[in-house]
């Protein structure tokens, strides 16, 4: 069998897969298409259910720009989301690593307790948290925005579960080479777990980007506006301009998609380089 032949055979066998993925992709992408096409139509057309792209994108965009501080909201959202992601990844990955690599009965118990932190609806803890931040003079600050979402049981768990696949012999070898525990984490674990970091980055970025309830409650300043707040402002009028709304929503959705597209190769094909 020549190489050519076996390749085409593999592709032929994948045809059902392509069809299945094609259908799934279509269903997944259709609303996005709808969103883009709605952003190019007038409000009345959107409301009448028009699916074809129109010619009103620039008009919708101009209306949006004249009503809302789009660039500032985008800038703020990027700043908050990136800072949150970097801090969250650092704090949670080192904790997840600590919980798994050095695991013992007590750490497992502590981990179980930490998990409890995510199981209560946010509404219940919002007033106490608000009081706390008000006492600490953190209302209306970026720190106040980020602090509650930097350390999440979910991310710790993600790194803990994935650290289970991190080979123990590498650690032993590194210790014999004289690396300290901190050095092992930074030099061995982080590069090895690239795919986990990339996946965690996508998820954290998305959550921070979409954070709404808490930021809205503590931020009372136009200069701190984020994208979700901007979108909320677009739907509260007595009259909704659907074309403009979809234009704004498009700007709100695209960054997360780009982040995913850029990072997906990292977590889906990042077969660990350094050690294996």
């Amino acid at each position, binding site marked *: 069998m020549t190489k050519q032949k076996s390749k085409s055979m593999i592709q032929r066998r994948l045809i059902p897969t392509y069809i299945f993925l094609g259908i799934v992709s279509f269903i997944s992408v259709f609303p996005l298409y709808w969103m883009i096409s709605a952003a190019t139509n007038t409000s009345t057309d959107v409301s009448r259910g028009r699916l074809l792209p129109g010619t009103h994108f620039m008009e919708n965009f101009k209306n949006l720009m004249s009503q809302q501080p789009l660039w500032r909201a985008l800038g703020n959202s990027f700043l908050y989301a990136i800072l949150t992601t970097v801090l969250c990844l650092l704090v949670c990955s080192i904790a997840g690593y600590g919980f798994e690599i050095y695991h013992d009965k007590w750490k497992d118990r502590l981990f179980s307790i930490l998990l409890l932190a995510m199981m209560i609806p946010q509404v219940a803890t919002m007033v106490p948290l608000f009081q706390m931040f008000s006492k600490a003079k953190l209302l209306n*600050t970026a720190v*106040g925005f980020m602090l509650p979402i930097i350390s999440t049981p979910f991310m710790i768990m993600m790194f803990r579960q994935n650290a289970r696949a991190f080979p123990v012999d590498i650690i032993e070898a590194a210790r014999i080479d004289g690396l300290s525990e901190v050095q092992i984490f930074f030099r061995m674990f982080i590069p090895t777990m690239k795919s986990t970091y990339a996946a965690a980055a996508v998820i954290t970025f998305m959550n921070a980007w979409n954070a709404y309830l808490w930021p809205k*409650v503590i931020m009372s300043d136009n200069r701190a506006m984020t994208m979700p707040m901007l979108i909320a402002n677009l739907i509260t009028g007595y*009259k*909704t301009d659907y074309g403009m709304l979809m234009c704004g929503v498009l700007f709100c959705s695209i960054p997360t998609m780009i982040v995913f597209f850029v990072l997906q190769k990292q977590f889906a094909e990042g077969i660990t380089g350094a050690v294996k």
Partner: protein
Amino acid sequence: MKKKMITALLASAMVLSLVACGGGGTDSNGGGDTSSSGSGTSSSSDSNKLTVWAWDQNFNIKAIETAAEQYKKDHPDFELEVVETSSDDCQTKLTTAANAGDYSTLPDIVLMQDNSYQKFLKSYPDAFTDLTDMGINWDDFGKLKQSYSMVDDKHYGVPFDNGAVIACYRTDILKEAGYTIDDLTDITWSEFAKIGKDVHDKTGKYLLTSEGTGGDTMMMMIQSCGANFVNENGDAYIVGNDIAEKCVDIYTELVQNDVVKLVNNWDEYVSTITNGEAAGVVNGNWITATIASTEDQKGQWAITTMPSVDGVDSATHYANNGGSSWYVTANCQNKDLAEDFLKSTFGSSTDFYDAILPQTGAIACYLPAGESDVYNEPNEFFNDQPIYSTIVEYSSHIPEFTKTPYHYEARECINTAVVNIVNGTAKADALQEAQDTLQFKMTE
């Protein structure tokens, strides 16, 4: 290479986080240019500046900004900062801050839906300022409008946005079915039902659209009789409430006879208008903004009074739905300025109301404004009807009714009952359940 990059990234993150945390401790401007003032106070301490929360750029915000411009003519140093805050967010923020006992994040002036004010006053009586003696002639506003922001004869809000209910009809569709707008003026709901059925048979269109969950039609009906689903003692009053039962009967009949199209949400509601599926709409007059945005229906709409409930002595053709008022918060450091600003614009200036009307379509609750020329100008979209003065006139006739902090609870319970009745539950059972649920929600 990549390894180094990641390490560098993490290192910089740590530095950043240290800076951020350090900054937080000593100076809360640490988060960049995102914080207004170190103490986290939102209301302005600057003696010539007021901060306002309001929503809708084309409507409320434009109105108060116009007011600020006008006020600046006599007070050149005056400054106004509007923080766009949706009505829902405003409630979330107010509730959280008030329950935490920290009013420092509140602005000087806040715009609030008339239907939600009573609940704030009940729960957080000290969050707002008594405005009774600010120098406004309160009777320049309709009696009912005043009552939304009043407790124990004290005024807490300056009424702004008019919520007088109007009925809008597509005259072209009516004509097709053999009716004119006069046939629908000052009618009762049973007459409306008859015409509606005929219109639906002949044209396939609906004479009324209503939201199944969270809709206001039932509230408008009962309030047009000067009644409510609660009584003066603050108890749920559905079972044994003759007027309530009549409203429920009318409404279920409308649904069952295809006179009203029940939709699930606001978007669908708007769609029925833009699609031309609705031959009529009964809602607060702010609905004209949505209607008028459908350019190709220009000249095909007319407004008139809403139908009245049959067989009720107190029935009228007037009700109120929505609308909002301005409130001064307890966090306002500059009460005199806030009062003076509101008084000399929203509280007394017909010039001001004339100025905002063409820009925003915001119709005043301030009755003297309705007499001006601007208000009497014919409106092209509505077949040259002078809709603004008509609406202001309507708003002077709206009967008062018993206010309750539990407005939204009542609305939810009654809508649930109607949906259940339409789906086959016996009326008595559904109403009893609504009564019980509402009473349950009204006790702690």
